């Protein structure tokens, strides 16, 4: 039940509803129906939904080395995802060995050397 209320709240806010006003009207509804006991659980469910949403929408660009220049291919990948450069979290992941990896919004582009080497290793082992 709390999950449905939390989802409804997210839905209203996503559709342009003001957060504070939306929460107040939710509280009013709960009071009227005598379901105020649900409120802490709704808050908890809302927090989880927000966390999932933030993970889903975050975009991480990983490089093997610091100060790697953003290549044309990377820019193309970002454009296809519809992400502005400022919204991308840049990380250094030395395990990639070389190349880069872009993950976010339900998409993965992995052109790291680690991935290439692992693909070759698996194909060789399978033979």
């Amino acid at each position: 039940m709390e999950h449905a209320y939390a989802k409804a709240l997210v839905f209203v806010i996503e559709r342009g509803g003001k957060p504070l006003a939306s929460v107040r009207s939710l509280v009013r509804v709960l009071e009227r129906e005598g379901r105020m006991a649900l409120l802490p659980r709704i808050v908890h469910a809302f927090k989880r939904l927000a966390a999932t949403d933030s993970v889903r929408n975050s975009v991480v660009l990983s490089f093997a080395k610091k100060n790697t220049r953003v290549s044309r291919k990377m820019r193309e990948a970002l454009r296809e995802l519809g992400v502005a450069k400022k919204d991308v979290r840049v990380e250094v992941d030395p395990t990639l060995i070389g190349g880069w990896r872009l993950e976010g919004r339900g998409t993965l582009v992995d052109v790291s050397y680690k991935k290439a080497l692992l693909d070759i290793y698996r194909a060789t082992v399978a033979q």
Partner: protein
Amino acid sequence: MNPSTVQKIIKEIESYTPRTAHVSVGTVSAVGDGVVTIDGLKGAVMGEMLLFEETKGKTLEEGTKQGAPLYGLILNLEEDSVRATLLGDVARVYEGMTVESTGRILSVPSGEEVLGRVVNALGEPIDGKGPFKKVTMMPVERESYGVIDRKSVSVPLQTGIKAIDSMIPIGRGQRELIIGDRGTGKTTIAIDTIISQRNEPKEKRPVCIYVAIGQKESKTARIVAHLREKDALSYTIVVDAPASAPAALQYLAPFTGAAIGEYFMDRGRDVLVIYDDLSKQAVAYRQLSLLLRRPPGREAYPGDIFYLHSRLLERAACLSKEKGGGTLTALPIIETQDGDVSGYIPTNVISITDGQIFLDTSLFNKGVRPAIDVGISVSRVGSSAQTKAMKSVAGTLRLELAQFRELESFMQFAQDLDKATAERIESGRRMVEVLKQGNGVPMPLAQQVVILYAAVNKFFIEVPVARVRECEAKLLEFFDASYSKILEEIKTTGAVSDELKKTLSLALQKFKGAHGELFT
């Protein structure tokens, strides 16, 4: 390093093209009991394979030590997430793990190379003989052939078991259920049928697939050893989803067996698939469905439990000439509780199949083995596939046995019996003895015809019941030594002409003369 390995690596590097395409991914949000909930994965397809990315944040060296890639299979599509069942070790999955969409429907390897091998429910070899080199991938879930692509069953599948080949004949492309309580010899019948295919000429010999579902590993190992000992493993494939395997693999195993078989059927070959057993598959599917939160129905089985078995068994077929003429015969096995054939799963599978061989515990305990209750066992399409030779000798067998069973129960409280009734009972007792057969000794068609001809013509009536089997063995030895031409003629023509009947009767008389000590 081995030079051939270096060559392989060079070849792989030369042919490697980096994959820059965008892959759809999701994140594991919950894991439990082999079922994973994954957020994201937009555009996921039902039955699609998912790849769990275990190498994220790990070094290359750690990545190479991961072992086989971990896959999942999508079984539920929900509003914001998908639910998938794991096809591997659940301990390797953690919350927040990235899951890649592969865009592939689950498929398994099949081909000549798979013959004689033991594979798991994913088609991966588990017999230590190394990986497959040249195989074709076959989809595990595939639509069965339609009406136009099929023809009627017309070629017999010899089980080598007298009681079955004579009274419940099975045709190639048929679905015949083997049903009975535990420990009544269901698997034995199935394995003997595989062994019996050894007697078929190589070009007509069906490829046999034994699917072990939820069985003890020791039992499967024993079966593999038995098949090897009887020289039957070379044309057999064993698909093993043991009791220790996740429920998902036990649910998948029969479909894997069917997919492997379809490779051969599509190429015009005959295939025999044994599903041992579908009750355990139903239990595994029930477990999966409950974990996937699908609404439970009767006995907590999901609503599509009938469809699970019907879509599997519909893949058995006898294809038309235009489609290559291949066949896939299915012998599903169902275990009953206390002889109750009216249970949910037994009735479902009975209604799907083209007949059933019912094994009775009381017959088994009386020493009648195989413990087939011919009274309620039927084969709805097999009689059109029965050889003329067998039809001519076994036509009255079922009726005689049914009359004997009725008289036998009446006899328990009757005092005086008239001569005809007593004779019928004596004859019935000998018939039961004749139909008894040892484990792992399937009998070729010609020998069966000779023995049944003798039995139907009351040849054993003067032989004491206790010595009927001894007499039968000696009779076969006698025919092998002195009348092998008769056996050869039955084998080649598949019929018993009037002239041959005369020769048979003459040979039987000669045997009687030579072995007077067996006849009282």
